[in-house]
């Protein structure tokens, strides 16, 4: 029996709806776009949570006290993506990293674009590289650059 012909069709999975991002996530995304500023939020235990959470991770109470944090920080862990997949924003080897931004008490996940795995380590100092045209999304930060060991 001949193997049946397989229908091939490209299909793009995407969100077909829009929604308001609300006062917490909305403020965070707006600050990225308009002020090149990263915002955190004060949690019930006094920690600054970055990115800001709408609800306290311990008490589940709504949170509202937004605070500025730096766009510079320290790498706390990283993985090295040797062969980026189609959707990755950086199409040459790069790192996904957890970054403790100065002024924050939790880690922020983003990309570090440093060309070579040997140029990043836990403890590396990094700084956000901002997009020229920003639209209020996480990718308003293109990536983080390594500024020091």
């Amino acid at each position, binding site marked *: 029996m001949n193997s049946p012909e397989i229908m091939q069709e490209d299909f793009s999975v995407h969100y077909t709806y829009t929604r308001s991002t609300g006062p917490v996530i909305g403020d965070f995304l707006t600050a990225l776009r308009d002020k090149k500023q990263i915002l955190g939020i004060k949690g019930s235990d006094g920690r600054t949570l970055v990115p800001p959470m709408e609800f306290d991770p311990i008490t589940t109470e709504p949170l509202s006290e937004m605070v500025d944090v730096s766009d510079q920080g320290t790498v706390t*862990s990283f*993985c090295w993506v040797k062969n980026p997949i189609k*959707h990755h924003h950086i199409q040459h080897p790069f790192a996904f990293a957890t970054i403790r931004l100065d002024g924050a008490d939790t880690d922020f996940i983003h990309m570090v674009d440093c060309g070579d795995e040997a140029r990043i380590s836990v403890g590396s100092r990094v700084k956000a590289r901002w997009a020229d045209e920003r639209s209020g999304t996480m*990718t308003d930060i293109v990536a983080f650059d390594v500024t020091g060991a």
Partner: protein
Amino acid sequence: MRDVAIVNYKQTPATRDSLATNELQMLQSVIQGVIKESGVELSDMDFVCSGSCDYLAGAAFAFVEAIEAVGPFPPIKESHVEMDGAWALYEAVLKIRTGEADSALIYGFGKSSPGDLRSVLSLQLDPYYLAPLWLDTISAAALQAAQCLDKGVLSEADMAAVVSRSRANAKSVAGTQLSGDYSIEELLAEPTFVSPLRMHDCAPITDGASVMIIATPEKARQWCDTPVVISGLDNRIESSMPTLRDLTVSRSTETAGKAAGVGSKPVEFAELHAPFSHQEILLQKALGLDASVDINPSGGALAANTMMAAGLDRIGHAAKMIQSGRYTRGVAHATSGSCLQHNLVAVLEAVS
């Protein structure tokens, strides 16, 4: 509350690409198979519950097509979870415990081959903070592994030992995907894939389907000689933001394990749903399983990892091993989400 017992379980051979065989065809073969093997009729099932993910098919309500495999006319009592089949089992167990049903058929299925699984699964992340970065599943797990290594929770050799054992155990399992003899040295000599993970630290991509029949112990004894009682079942979830959790431990597994009564009697073996080698070590610790406990005698998810069925498969394999007489009491675990976010623990025991 009433007890619940596993009657039978069956899975399709695990395959990297089922080609023109679609989800419905995979399901039909195992559902008909398990029904025939158990000497029951589909109409004997008081409740049907399934687990799958529409993102794999890339179409809303794709799971509805799969219901054809159980013939929903005349109308049946049926439900679906957009989760692994292990959570469909959880819903079915509640139905039986509360007296709403005396029996249930559970299935989980996933055909991952048509899409890019790493990208598809990144859509399960927070839609504002993480998904736009396309933090794929392997990169997220690699960050977790990096933190475990940095903290000294485990070593790369420990991870390789997990893979070596998984593939050796899988040699005795029919229809699995990855098996064979690999030494720790050999595995450590492989290049990294998404560093610190090597390709073999990651579960394979698998197409497949699995089905299970459960019932009250009375009914289960009518249908089979060796029902396996689910003596404990619990599931717990953690924050959707991986950065708000300590990724070097699995607190939700620990809590679920305690609630399910894992440590109340000796554990002989465990089937742990760890799609990445380092996660198996975290799970073992969270459940308090010492070196005397056989881990993943089936090879686990590193040998075959059907999306939305691999958790149910752990429970199914564990039940089959108790039915075969190899063990009398064991733990089965299922996970869901990024970096062990959501965990289910089941304790299975032979009927004495």
